[in-house]
Each structure stands twice: as structure tokens, then as C-alpha cells.
């Protein structure tokens, strides 16, 4: 898994594409993923997914007879930087479309540029509902990611299944956490009226010490915890909580892709047994069909058995674009928007539809209980069983 060569491949790919085709024969997609800064890892893998898609299409003769070129800029996980880079892609590279974004603020920032520049933007990862809320929504922005609404409600569904009655929440004190909270509390009240939220903890941005929150939760006497301490933060949280006997005392349901295989692999024995977590993708889900093919390709590309979850996110985000362009038979912005609205596609993780009214894909997530795998080739915790929580019923 050599990241340098990974990035290099991307560059070479775009270079060769540029060389071989004249300007008019190329569809340019601007990719904005952080390849430095705090969310670099997610960005790198997502970019890889986008590039795999472009490679596939180009190898198969292109799209509407044109080659695809993916031009990447580092958004650095910083909204002002993302704004500048999005503009840079549009003004200098003359890209026709934008994909990418990780954090909600970066998503918002790119969405704002796409509105000004009238360029389609597919948000790959940003989840906060604010981006597609009525006051911010515009016709050029589409979201491939599951939003906090779906994610929070899915968690409520799991909490209901686990019969959690006295619930504590621990959610990060910024928009992602607040949006999750709204969705979760509303939905749990609806589906499980007897449940009660007894304590809410809001760790602040940038904190690395959660013990004060852990202590508060344990003193509150809840039987279940809903958490938004996402994958990048979870290892620290888990290591601090485990010695308190935290995970033995409460049932723990967490959003934020804590269930993704790379997190489990990296944490090894530090991944608590029996928590419920989600992920966009788990390679062990199935070996059949498109999913199996994609996993195999990724295994080959990265030279690892256990493939990460993020490439598929970048792949699918770009897939919306390419399929819409194919359907529209054109890369004209209005035509592609029309094609995207209501579009259904088959992704490596199953069929999905882009809702016309709010440009939100009905993206669900994999949820499961993290347990020690019996499989010797994968000596980490994994979801057993894996269930795909479909989004349709949970979407507003």
C-alpha cells in the first residue's frame, strides 16, 4: 500500500489522458479531496476510487466517445482552501464537474462555489443536512453520501432493536454532531417512545481527552449510548473508555464509520467487542457480483487482502456523474442535472437512486455488531452479521 506510487498513478493517468486526446474530446472532472491535513487518509482513498472509475471507463472506450480526466486539488480539509481550489479547478483547468469533499464545512464551501460558477458538484462524503437544507440548496449540488439524517435515524433503529431505554449521547460539538442529534432524538422518540435521553455529552472540537465525558456518562446510569465519535477519533476514545469498564456497562451504538475494516484492523484488540457500528463498505460483505469485482480490483491495486472502505465512496460519487453523462448523452450542465434527478445506478454496493426533489442519494450504510472474527485470515473484529440498512424509509 504505497501511497506515493498511488498518487503518482493518478498524475500519470491524467497526463496520458491529456496527451492522447484533444481538448474537446475530454470530460474533465475536478476532484477535491484532502491529501494533507487531518482528513488526508479518507481523501487519498476516495480519490483512488474516483480514479479507478475513470480508468475503467477510459479502458472501455470512454464516455460518449470521450475520455475522462480526473484533475485533483488538495482541499486540505479547510473550507477556505477548498473554495480557492474549487475555483482553481473551474477557472484554470476548466473542469466540467466537481466531486469530493470530506468535512461538512468543506462540502458547504464547494457547494457555494458550484452555485456561483454553475458547475455540478457531487458531494462524496459531507453528511451534514445543512448543505441540502432549503436555505442552502441549489440545483447544482448533489449528495452521494448518506446524510446525518439517515445516519442518525439508522442508529435509532439499532438502538430500538437493542432495547435501549435510558440513553446517553456523546456527539462532537460541531455541526456533524448536532445534526446527528436532531435525527436520532426525533426518530427514537417516534419509534421507541419509552426510551429516554438521560445525558448528553458534547466533546469539543480538537479534544483528545474524553475521560470527563466518559465519567459523566457512566455516572448517569444509562443502559445505552449513541455516539458520534467518528472513526478518526474513536481509537483514542475507546482506549480511554475501556479501562473504566465502559463498554461492559453500556450498549454502544456509534455513527461515523467506526465499523470500517481499516479502523478495526488498525485498532486490533483495542476495538471493543460487541459495539454496534457502521461503515460505507465492508469488503467481507459479499464476494459476488459488482462488489466482488471491485474488491478484487482494489486488492490488486493496493496489494492488500483487507481492502479499505473509502475507495468505494469516491467511486460511487463519480459514478453518478458518469452515468448521468451517459444517460444525457452530453456533458452540458443542464442536461446532466436533468439526467441526475431521479437517476438510478448500480454501484458496487448495490442499486441507488438520486432523489429529484433534494438531490440526495438514497445511500444506506452497513451496520453490524463488532465481534472477534472466527476467520483466521482476518484476525480483527468485524461486523457479524453485516446488515445493509436501506435509507429509503428513513429519508424525510
Amino acid at each position, binding site marked *: 500500500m504505497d501511497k506515493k506510487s498511488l498518487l503518482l498513478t493518478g498524475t500519470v493517468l491524467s497526463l496520458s489522458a491529456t496527451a492522447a486526446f484533444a481538448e474537446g474530446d475530454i470530460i474533465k472532472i475536478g476532484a477535491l479531496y484532502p491529501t494533507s491535513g487531518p482528513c488526508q487518509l479518507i481523501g487519498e482513498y476516495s480519490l483512488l476510487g474516483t480514479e479507478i472509475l475513470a480508468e475503467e471507463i477510459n479502458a472501455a472506450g470512454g464516455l460518449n466517445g470521450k475520455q475522462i480526466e480526473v484533475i485533483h486539488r*488538495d482541499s486540505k480539509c479547510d473550507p477556505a482552501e477548498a473554495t480557492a481550489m474549487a475555483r482553481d479547478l473551474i*477557472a484554470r483547468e476548466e473542469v466540467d464537474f466537481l466531486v469530493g469533499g470530506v468535512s461538512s464545512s468543506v462540502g458547504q464551501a464547494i457547494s457555494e462555489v458550484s452555485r456561483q460558477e454553475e458547475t455540478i458538484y457531487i458531494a462524496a462524503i459531507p453528511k451534514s443536512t445543512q448543505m441540502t437544507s432549503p436555505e*442552502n440548496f441549489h440545483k447544482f449540488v448533489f449528495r452521494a453520501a448518506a446524510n446525518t439524517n439517515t445516519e442518525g435515524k439508522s442508529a435509532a433503529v439499532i438502538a430500538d432493536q437493542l432495547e435501549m431505554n435510558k440513553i446517553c449521547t456523546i456527539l462532537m460539538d460541531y455541526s456533524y454532531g448536532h445534526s446527528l442529534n436532531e435525527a436520532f432524538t426525533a426518530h427514537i422518540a417516534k419509534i421507541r417512545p419509552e426510551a429516554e435521553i438521560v445525558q448528553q455529552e458534547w466533546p469539543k472540537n480538537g479534544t483528545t481527552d474524553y475521560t470527563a465525558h466518559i465519567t459523566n456518562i457512566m455516572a448517569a446510569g444509562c443502559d445505552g449510548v449513541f455516539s458520534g465519535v467518528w472513526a478518526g477519533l474513536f481509537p483514542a476514545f475507546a482506549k480511554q473508555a475501556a479501562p473504566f469498564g465502559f463498554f461492559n456497562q453500556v450498549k454502544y451504538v456509534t455513527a461515523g464509520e467506526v465499523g470500517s475494516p481499516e479502523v478495526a484492523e488498525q485498532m486490533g484488540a483495542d476495538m471493543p467487542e460487541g459495539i454496534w457500528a457502521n461503515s460505507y463498505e465492508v469488503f467481507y460483505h459479499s464476494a459476488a457480483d459488482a462488489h466482488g469485482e471491485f474488491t478484487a480490483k482494489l486488492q490488486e491495486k493496493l496489494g492488500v487482502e483487507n481492502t479499505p472502505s473509502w475507495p468505494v465512496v469516491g467511486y460511487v460519487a463519480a459514478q453518478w456523474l458518469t452515468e448521468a453523462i451517459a444517460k444525457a448523452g452530453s456533458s452540458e450542465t443542464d442536461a446532466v442535472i436533468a439526467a441526475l434527478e431521479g437517476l438510478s445506478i448500480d454501484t458496487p454496493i448495490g442499486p441507488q437512486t438520486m432523489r429529484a426533489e433534494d438531490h440526495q442519494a438514497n445511500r444506506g450504510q452497513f451496520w453490524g455488531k463488532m465481534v472477534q472474527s472466527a476467520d483466521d485470515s482476518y484476525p480483527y473484529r468485524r461486523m457479524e452479521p453485516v446488515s445493509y440498512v436501506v435509507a429509503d424509509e428513513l429519508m424525510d
Partner: protein
Amino acid sequence: MITQRNLILLGIVGAALLALPLIGSLFAIYLVNEILIFALFALSFNLLLGYGGLISFGHAAYFAIGAYACAVLLTTFGWPFFLAFGAAAVISAVCAAVIGYFCVKLTEIYFSMLTLAFAQLVWAVAFKWIAVTGGDTGFIGVAVPDWLDVPVRFYYFTIVVVALCAWIMWRIVNSAYGFTLVATRENRNRAEFIGVDVKRIQLVAFILAGTFAGVAGSLFTLFNHSVFVESAWWTQSAEVMIMSILGGVGTFLGPALGAATLLILDRFITEWTVYWPTFLAIILLAVLFFFPEGLMGFASKRKKKGE
């Protein structure tokens, strides 16, 4: 000092800026526009650092205050454009006056640390006051008036505002006040003994710097149609300091050159390596060890040698 040669140079740069849209590159317009905004920010910072000898670690606060004030007045309250734009500068000035009142009581590192503390406080307020600022997702969709919402127009608007501000700052640093400010930097003690109230002189510098930073912040808001809380974080203050030192704090326009250099580097280095911080660091080290007076100082020295 204005020499004829500098005037000619300035004229050429000015003409080039005005003529830039003729080449028809939207990219160039965006890039130069952003450079102009940060040049103004860096120039305002240099009022403190270069002329007043005051090392502020929290100059981003006033940039952010101006940015938020402009966004909120324009969008949430729907004020007329020029009123909102002007009021944003006034609000930055008032905040700088209040914060500066406490900061100038301290000297040297304590001054720096108090400016940092206040700036972080501003950040924390912006982060938590979601109803007004939008918190971490930022203030999105600023109501930029239609007549201004065209890249080329906004570009010219920026040129006018930045040129005007720069001209005012130039007048200020060469004014009686500017002379006195330099005197307090050179020898605070002596300045007191010619009857100068050093703290008040420094407070005025703080307010002026804060005001122009606020104008830069407002422009940035209009440019992006959005404000982000990162603008108030201490790294933004560090960045403007790096710009100034890179360009040279000993000259009036040095920091502007530093801003241009940093932004151009940012756009082009990030394209071919993910290790851009190292390249930036190497450039900083080169300035540090080989051209301590910054790029501008380096350039003017070369010129002198050549003559």
C-alpha cells in the same frame, strides 16, 4: 521613500493589475483577486509589526470579525451594500479598540500572548454562536449584490478598495503619527520622555490595523460568498505573519509581496506534491538564513548593489 523609479514600478504594477482581465483568464482574476485581499491583510498587519514593532499573534481575529460582520449585516439584516461594508470596518475597529485597550498595556511576549488569547476567544465565540455565524459549517450564501457578483467587477472593486486602503495606510505611516509610531518602536523609553503616550500611540496602531484587517475580511467574504470559522484560528494569524516576514517587514509593500508569493506557491506547489509544507518551510528557512530582510529587502539590496 518615493523615488521616481519606485513610482514607475508602481505604475507598471498598477497598469498590469488593471489590464489583467484583458487576457481573459478567469483563473488569473481569481488568483490576483485573492492576492490583493491578503496583501491588504498583510499590509494591515505590518502597521503593527513593521511600524509599531508589535508582534500580534491574533491579527486574524479582526479579519474574521470584519468578515462575519459584513456577512451578517448584508445577509441576515439585509443592509444596503455600502452601509454593511462600511459598518463591518467600523465593527472591526471597535473590537480592535476594546481588545487593544487591554493588549497595549502589556509589552513584548506578554502582548503577543494576550493578542493570541483574545483571538482564540473570538474563534471560540464564532464557533459556538451557531445562530449568527453558522458555527463550523460557516456562514454560507452571503448576499452579494448582483452588480458586484461578476468576477471581473468584483476584481475591479477589490483593486479600488485595496488601493484606497493602501494609499491611506501609506499616508498614515508617513504622517506625523506614523513618525511617532516608528519612534515608539525604535525607542519606547525615549518616546515617553518626549511626551508621547506610547500606549495610546500603540492603541491607535492596533485599531488601524484591525480596521484594515476587517476590510480585508469583508472583501474575502464577498469574494467567497461565505465565511469560515477557520479564519479566526491562530494558524491564520501565523500565516499573515509568515507573509509579512517573507516579504519583508522593513518596507511598506514587502508584506504584499509576501502575500503574493505565499498564495502563488500554495496554488502551484500543492499541485505536484502532497509535501508542500516542506517546500514552504525550506523557502522560509532560506529567507531566514540568507535574506533576513525578506524578499523585498533582498530585491532592494540587489538594486543598490547594481547601481
